[in-house]
């Protein structure tokens, strides 16, 4: 197992390397000049040139890349052009918020998605199944920003049950305070992922229900509950896990919209503003962070496979 993990970690190197090259090229090759954006329309050419030199943007691209990647290795991720702060601590802190949000939504999405999927599969072709899958389609179609606003207005403003936006109440930082703030954005973000997980769970469970070992389990006189939740679910969970892994990636990146709507202090706004302001070090840092997390999570999921499926051995 350890050697498997080691090997996978090796495998991550080219992927992350590719990600850095890609983000670097995209950022630097797209039109738009950070100096012009920072200095605004009022800037003179001389001051733009001066700023470009100060930011090192007058160097040839490959030199800039090598300098950047070299510094990253030494733990210096540079300073945000727009935010003027050091990238690493800034991104790390904001990313934590995104991560909490993503985690909460994937938990919500998984719990509801898997639950709905199991019931649908068990009651295949019944009205319950059909209406459940109809709901799932609605969930899939709800644009997050729209759902988010709706939740705010209903549960935040009109019913006053939950906070409307932000991660903490003004001037506070308590854990439960954060959890209360987390609920609405997490729900808004989880709708789409929940729908996809539900569909996957359903089809995977349907498949498993037709397997011989389910018949065996029933022939032993087990209770249906055990047949479904232990024998069937444990097998059906493996493809579902893959989907969950992919969704985590999607949520991590897609949290942007929800974060904007809920003023959640994640990397979302940071990233969008960064891109729009051509804040190279910041965007590169954010992407590197997100990509690393994504590949790490997928590694984790591959390891989880081994727990759910003993046939996969990473020897």
């Amino acid at each position, binding site marked *: 197992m350890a*050697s498997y993990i*080691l*090997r996978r970690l*090796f495998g991550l190197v080219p992927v992350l390397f590719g990600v850095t090259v890609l983000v670097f090229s995209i950022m630097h090759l797209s039109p738009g000049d950070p100096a012009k954006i920072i200095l605004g329309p009022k800037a003179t050419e001389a001051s733009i040139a001066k700023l470009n030199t100060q930011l090192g943007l007058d160097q040839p691209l490959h030199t800039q890349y090598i300098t950047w990647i070299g510094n990253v290795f030494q733990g210096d991720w540079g300073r945000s052009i727009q935010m003027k702060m050091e990238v690493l601590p800034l991104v790390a802190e904001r990313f934590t918020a995104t991560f909490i949000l993503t985690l909460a939504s994937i938990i919500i999405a998984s719990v509801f998605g898997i639950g709905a999927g199991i019931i649908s599969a068990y009651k295949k072709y019944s009205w319950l199944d059909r209406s459940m899958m109809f709901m799932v389609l609605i969930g899939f179609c709800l644009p997050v920003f729209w759902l988010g606003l709706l939740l705010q207005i209903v549960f935040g403003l009109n019913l006053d049950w939950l906070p409307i936006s932000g991660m903490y109440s003004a001037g506070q930082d308590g854990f439960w305070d954060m959890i209360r703030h987390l609920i609405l954005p997490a729900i808004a973000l989880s709708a789409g992922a929940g729908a996809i997980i539900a569909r996957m769970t359903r089809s995977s469970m349907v498949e498993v229900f037709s397997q011989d070992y389910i018949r065996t389990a029933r022939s032993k006189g087990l209770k249906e509950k055990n047949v479904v939740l232990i024998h069937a679910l444990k097998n059906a969970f493996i493809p579902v896990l893959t989907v969950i892994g992919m969704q985590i990636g999607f949520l991590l990146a897609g949290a942007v919209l929800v974060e904007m709507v809920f003023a959640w202090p994640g990397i979302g706004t940071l990233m969008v503003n960064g891109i729009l302001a051509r804040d190279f070090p910041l965007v590169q840092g954010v992407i590197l962070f997100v990509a690393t997390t994504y590949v790490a999570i997928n590694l984790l999921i591959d390891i989880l496979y081994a727990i759910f499926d003993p046939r996969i051995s990473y*020897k």
Partner: protein
Amino acid sequence: MAELLQVRNLKKYYPVKSGVLQRTTGYVKAVDDVSFTLHEGESLGLVGESGCGKSTLGRTVLQLIKPTAGEVVYDDKNLSDLSFREMKPYRKELQMIFQDPYASLNSRKKISNIVTEPLRIHKISTIKEREEKMEEILEKVGLNRAFADRYPHEFSGGQRQRIGIARALMLNPKLIIADEPVSALDVSIQAQVLNLLQDLQEEFNLTYLFIAHDLSVVKHISTRVGVMYLGRMAELAPKNALYKEPLHPYTQALMSAVPVPNPLIKRERIILKGDVPSPQNPPSGCAFHTRCSACMAICKEQRPELKEVQKDHFVACHLY
């Protein structure tokens, strides 16, 4: 009888990978140094338990899998030296019938399409001629030509196997490697297919390499029989010699294990201990020594060579 094809010291090792960098750390010796000759018009039966390398042997002979070592000589050419493209003309003469009548037909193609596929691949004849040829062959294998517009799932296992046979016959091959063509079939259907194969052999002077795990089936159809164990040939002899007097202890055990549909005959059964060892690390010496009742000291150390102990009767055992 003329020699049609020679297999010389054929080996196929599948690499087993492990370690941090997925280096190859060992091999599954699926086929390990097997030699035999096929004569024109004969049928050589090949038996052995699951996983002993029968399919691998069949596939390497046809170069569907590149052998690790050894030669397959056909028409004075070593087929292993040929490239994918150079091999194409030979494929017309060397055909294969597969074990699984369900998986070996593309379920999304009509029968007509499946059966004329070989002609299309080799760009032989016009569309009309293809149709005619197809009808002729379908008739030969006992299928109504009205079937041509249907999909494989509309057929029973026996019928599908006939479709597979029809496909193999389309190019007028000389040699057919039949990889367990009847294992998936019911006895009554199996009998139909076996009869068909026999009839076709007579009519077209076909040569068969007939792979099976059922000794009775092999006995029925073959003129010579080879018994494989863990990638090696344990015994190779003309049918009658082998069934009358099996020499290898494994062949003996195998024969005694076959249930006989006659409750009046009570035979002394040799029940082998234990399972077939893994081909990834086969026992040293004679691969069968772990289950053999006549095992001697030498068996554990030295690998027995295939020797001709009686005329045309080869066996790989230290007892002889």
